């Protein structure tokens, strides 16, 4: 009888966890706010105190289809309730995937250069400086259009005094260290 009871309990627990994982997937995948992702406190309210365990299980499930759960903490904040959780792709995409989802190759290049340039300048640049860099390779109208698009999509953030910083999306989606490393290792056009 005991064996049967504990078997039922385990089954029940598994079922509860399965429901929570399903709920977590819905919460994380369906865009609820203007910015994607869900705050830790929202997940705690929806999934209970052990929401991190639920996310761990969800992450291992998502691994099978090339996705992952990612957590982004605000600067200088340790409280997980204030962190933002979202689902991102696990492996890098190829250029074809990006272009088929609406990105032009020159836009990706401008975005890459903008992000790398801002990282190299310790996270803050004057918009004029960035424009000057991009205008080296792209026409002025394209540069202005692209910077506005990157700001709108959350890759760049407009600060006071004409300063640009990295936006929340760049912080989430771009591996900054890897990007700089790869750019430094790239061969220049002359060589």
């Amino acid at each position: 009888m005991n064996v049967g009871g504990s078997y039922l309990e385990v089954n029940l627990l598994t079922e509860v966890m399965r429901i929570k994982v399903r709920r977590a997937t819905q919460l994380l995948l369906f865009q609820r706010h203007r910015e994607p992702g869900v705050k830790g406190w929202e997940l705690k309210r929806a999934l209970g105190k052990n929401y991190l365990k639920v996310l761990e299980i969800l992450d291992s499930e998502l691994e099978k289809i090339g996705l992952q759960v990612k957590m982004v903490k605000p600067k200088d904040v340790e409280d997980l309730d204030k962190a933002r959780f979202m689902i991102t792709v696990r492996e890098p995409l190829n250029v074809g995937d990006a272009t088929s989802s609406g990105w032009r190759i020159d836009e990706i290049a401008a975005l890459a250069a903008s992000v790398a340039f801002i990282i190299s300048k310790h996270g803050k640049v004057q918009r004029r400086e960035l424009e000057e860099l991009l205008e080296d390779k792209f026409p002025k109208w394209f540069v202005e259009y692209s910077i506005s698009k990157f700001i709108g999509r959350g890759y760049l953030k407009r600060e006071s005094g004409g300063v640009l910083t990295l936006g929340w999306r760049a912080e989430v989606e771009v591996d900054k260290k890897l990007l700089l490393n790869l750019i430094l290792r790239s061969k220049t056009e002359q060589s």
Partner: protein
Amino acid sequence: MSKRKRRPIEKVRRIIHTCRMVEERGLNPFNVEVREELKMLDGQLDDLKSYEELCLDVEAVNMLTKVVKAQKDWLSEEASVFYTDPAFIEYKLRKIPTKAIVDAFMMAWKPIACVEEISKEKLVEAIDYWNRLKPLKSRWSKFTGGHKPGGYIELEELKRQGLIIDETFYKDLERALDELREACKTRGSVSYWSFISGKSFEETVRRAYMLSFLLTYGYAELKKIPLREDYIVTPRERVEAKTPSESLPISIDYERWRKLSGGESSD
């Protein structure tokens, strides 16, 4: 003599300005010689006499502590994104082919996955809402008492409702200026919050509104009180602005007004 007196405070202002540039523009915080600046501030402390000068000195010290924090952040940033000369990265960005930049970015970019579709539950909720929603005509009639044909409104009525202004606005403005002059009779100036604070919240907002026009037209001057969320307002003869004017938003909310008026409320 006056020149000698002015010098120490100018140094303090220079420190505040430099620190602010570091904070706002992201300049290299190590360009500020914090130790030297602190020594200098310490050395000239006896030369600072007025309350305002001492406040500026405190503000300078406060700004220097922020620079020290920025130096710490700068170092940890360099440690996390292994330090490379920005000029070298800029050189590489200008020289490498566009395709190489794209390839590098694609390796480092993992976009967010999200579904921009309506879920089944939300769809059911939406249909239910639609079914319960009354036609626009009946909803509007609830507030307006049915559809009324268009008509004319008298000029006096518009003035009464405050939709248009007439000469009374300028009279009010003159009255506000007189009040300001009266308030500044003894000390020459008055605190912004104490001047605008009125018996009711509406009155406070109205006084702030009138004062904003006096400032815009150059009949009064506004100076920030260092380290406090307050300003000094001084009346003056009208001055034509030679430089482009700046906007200064100051928000007034009900809670703040209640604090100013000592916890009383109008309701």
